[in-house]
């Protein structure tokens, strides 16, 4: 994939040379936007030519989303002008943007859970039936079916989308954006929860769109993807335009340097820890329905155990079962050699197991509450003796956590909602560290987090491991699993499909194990 990405980038580079002579499809010039207390964007220029894929990268909070919301008419710019095909335009609403031929794939899933795929895809532009105001349902579903088929999705268009996995929903979202006959498609992290197979399908669709002259703005944290598919890359940092370069002319390291404004060391530093023999957690024949089947493994003190597998392979379910969020239907869990009975999260917490869930906004945090409240939530009982909350203690503990994890927040009272993704994740981790856990399970700990914060999370995991905490890290990003873990388990359809030493394993090894013996099984998104 890396090789083919390079070839793609090279040919794209020559194609782009000829495109530069054309009138730009979109020009955003001198765009500035401030919110109370924050200058979100300052004098940003962005140009998109017909038939090119432009990467828009930057750390969280760099202003990518704000810029795209201005393009989509959700916000209006304080200053600056937008030119569309050489004509100045004013975009006041998403409707205006759609009318011009701009379509968006939003980072947060923008599907209505109770409506089926067909209705979701054509919401707001339903084909009209015989009588004005009515909907031509048959046409709608036929078109929707065709849209899904173009992405090789074998999903029922009449099933409410909440029954689909996150990855499937994301592909429906892509289908929705593609079904609008758009000149420009903005994709805000469309791949964040897709499997490699689905990413490949998406990329081949993106290439054929490019050949048809459609332009794409592609926002992603995964720089390998930027290299694989994009022609040029525009980098933002702290609301300022750092530069725009042909992808073929810059290295990934260059892009990272532009994003963070400083040198970042090797992303994954392997720490060779002294192997300890002490097993902290052992799982024997653990099962939960058909989601987790007969899983056995041991986690040593101070070890980082990576868990890889495709979406839906049962990794999250395994973690939830160990944590007691969904009780096991069979098997046993041993902590430091002692069998423990975990049916509820409380029991796991009391045994010293912490769990940083996949969806931090919904499962890991109280978004509307303060940093302090979130940090002490797990030890509240200890801080409310005899009855009232001891605020000085809360403050002290929070201060310590903020320092230790380097959480960037204006104050302890700041609502967690207003922190960046990376800092939110640190708050979740800080909460578990207050408990001094023996085992910490992290489910996709760096999803949607920018490069700088990722490195900090890894460093933190290594520190914890050095102090003897056993860490289980579930991740869909193979480079991350390989770079951070000591040992790797691969799951496939609820079972353990392989165990690897991270120093010697390759992405191919993991992929083969994750897809099962026959390569195509389990890869079908349906």
């Amino acid at each position, binding site marked *: 994939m890396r090789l083919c990405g390079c070839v793609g980038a090279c040919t794209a580079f020559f194609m782009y040379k000829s495109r530069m002579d054309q009138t730009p499809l979109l020009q955003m010039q001198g765009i500035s936007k401030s919110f109370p207390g924050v200058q979100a964007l300052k004098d940003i220029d962005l140009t998109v030519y017909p038939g090119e894929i432009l990467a828009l990268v930057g750390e969280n909070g760099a202003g990518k989303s704000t810029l795209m919301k201005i393009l989509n008419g959700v916000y209006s710019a304080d200053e600056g002008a937008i030119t569309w095909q050489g004509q100045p335009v004013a975009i006041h609403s*998403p409707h205006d943007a759609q009318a011009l031929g701009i379509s968006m794939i939003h980072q947060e899933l*923008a599907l*209505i859970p*109770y409506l089926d795929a067909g209705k979701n895809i054509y*919401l*707001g*532009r339903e084909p009209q039936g015989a009588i004005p105001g009515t909907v031509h349902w048959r046409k709608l579903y036929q078109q929707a079916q065709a849209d899904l088929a173009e992405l090789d999705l074998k999903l*029922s268009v009449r099933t409410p989308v909440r029954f689909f996995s996150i990855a499937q929903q994301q592909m429906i979202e892509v289908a929705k954006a593609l079904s609008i006959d758009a000149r420009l498609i903005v994709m805000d992290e469309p791949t964040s929860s897709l499997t490699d197979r689905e990413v490949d399908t998406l990329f081949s669709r993106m290439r054929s769109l490019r050949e048809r002259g459609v332009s794409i703005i592609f926002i992603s944290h995964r720089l390998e993807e930027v290299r694989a598919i994009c022609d040029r890359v525009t980098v933002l940092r702290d609301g300022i335009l750092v530069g725009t370069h042909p992808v073929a002319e810059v290295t990934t390291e260059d892009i990272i340097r532009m994003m963070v404004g400083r040198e970042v060391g090797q992303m994954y530093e392997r720490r060779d820890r002294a192997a300890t023999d002490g097993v902290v957690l052992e799982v024997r024949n653990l099962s939960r329905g058909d989601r987790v089947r007969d899983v056995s493994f041991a986690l040593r003190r101070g070890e980082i155990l990576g868990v890889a597998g495709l979406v839906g392979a049962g990794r999250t379910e395994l973690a939830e079962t160990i944590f007691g969020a969904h009780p096991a239907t069979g098997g046993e869990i041993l902590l430091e050699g002692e069998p423990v009975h975990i049916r509820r999260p409380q029991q796991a917490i009391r045994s010293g197991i912490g769990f940083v869930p996949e969806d931090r906004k919904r499962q890991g945090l109280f978004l509307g509450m303060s940093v302090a409240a979130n940090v002490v939530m797990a030890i509240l009982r200890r801080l409310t003796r005899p009855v009232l909350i001891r605020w000085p203690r809360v403050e002290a503990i929070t201060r310590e956590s903020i320092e230790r994890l380097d959480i960037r927040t204006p104050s302890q009272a700041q609502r967690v909602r207003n922190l960046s993704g990376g800092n939110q994740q640190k708050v979740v981790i800080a909460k578990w560290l207050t408990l001094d856990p023996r085992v910490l399970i992290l489910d996709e700990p760096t999803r949607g987090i920018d490069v700088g914060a990722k490195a900090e999370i890894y460093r933190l995991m290594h520190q914890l491991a050095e102090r003897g905490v056993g860490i289980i890290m579930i991740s869909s990003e193979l480079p991350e699993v390989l770079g951070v873990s000591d040992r790797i388990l691969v799951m496939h359809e609820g079972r353990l499909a392989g165990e690897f030493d991270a120093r010697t394993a390759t992405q191919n090894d993991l992929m083969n194990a994750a897809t099962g013996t026959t390569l195509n099984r389990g890869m079908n998104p349906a």
Partner: protein
Amino acid sequence: MTPSTTLSWQVTLGNVLRRTVVLLFLIALGLYFSSESEQFLTERNLTNIAQQNAHVIIVTIGMTLTMLVGGIDLSVGSVAALGGAVSAGLIVREGLPIEAAVILTLAMGFGIGLTNGALVVFGKLPPFVATLSMMGVARGLTLLYTNGKPISGMGEAYTRWGRDRLSVPVVGDVPLPVIVALAVVLLALLLLTRTRFGLHIYAVGGHQETSRLAGVPVSRVQLLTYGISGMLAALAGMLLAARLYSAQPQMGVGLELDAIASSVLGGVSLFGGVGNVPGAVIGGLLIGVLGNGMNLLRVASYQQQMIQGIVLVVAVTVDMYTKRLERR
């Protein structure tokens, strides 16, 4: 068998199950009452149930729409009373012809509903608060307009809509209010299943921000939905006044609770985006049948309220349980 076909099969089964649970409940209740009372399963009694609950069904439809769009309309009982009073007043005091009075009253109901909608959409008030305030205001207006006394003497052309029957082939004699209610139900069904506006109601109730990004005119959808609810409440009030031969200033008290209970029994989510008209109608009939049956069995009215509460809890619990089965 691919997983996707399994999934859609489960969904269908779940849907069938869910719709059937409340229907089975209704049938079981009917069977029980007919075994306990000989009068229950007579044509006369069944006609009575339909006639006495026509206005509840109409208000329930409006409630279902506002709940689907993610809101609620607590003002329906008061608006019904105001609708009855104003229509009666227009005829009796102002001497307007009945058609004009009815049209003006419906327009007034629509206007009150729009006001509710505007408070929610532009005033950013929670629907509960906006319509709770309107509940007070409309009741106060009714008392002011009627001076706290019933208005009567609307004439036969008005009151016949409360009681008269129309001979329908095959079915027999059907009370006029029931025909009005059926028309409302049918229109609402078409609205929700066939029109763009109907789909937009589900969309806005399902996720407002997403709908906005998809180009759905969110504000207009909400405004219109509250408008329709207000208009239906006024219509229900007129039917009620016609049945009682007079517009009572205190009528329709607690009507909003019956309508909410009916909608919830019918599977309409309090959080918006989920529910349908047939369910709501079945829910409304369940409430009606329960009241009628308990009257026949001479259950004291204090106990009736208690039993209604318990039935609501049981039915909704069973419903939630089947929903969970569906998710499996």
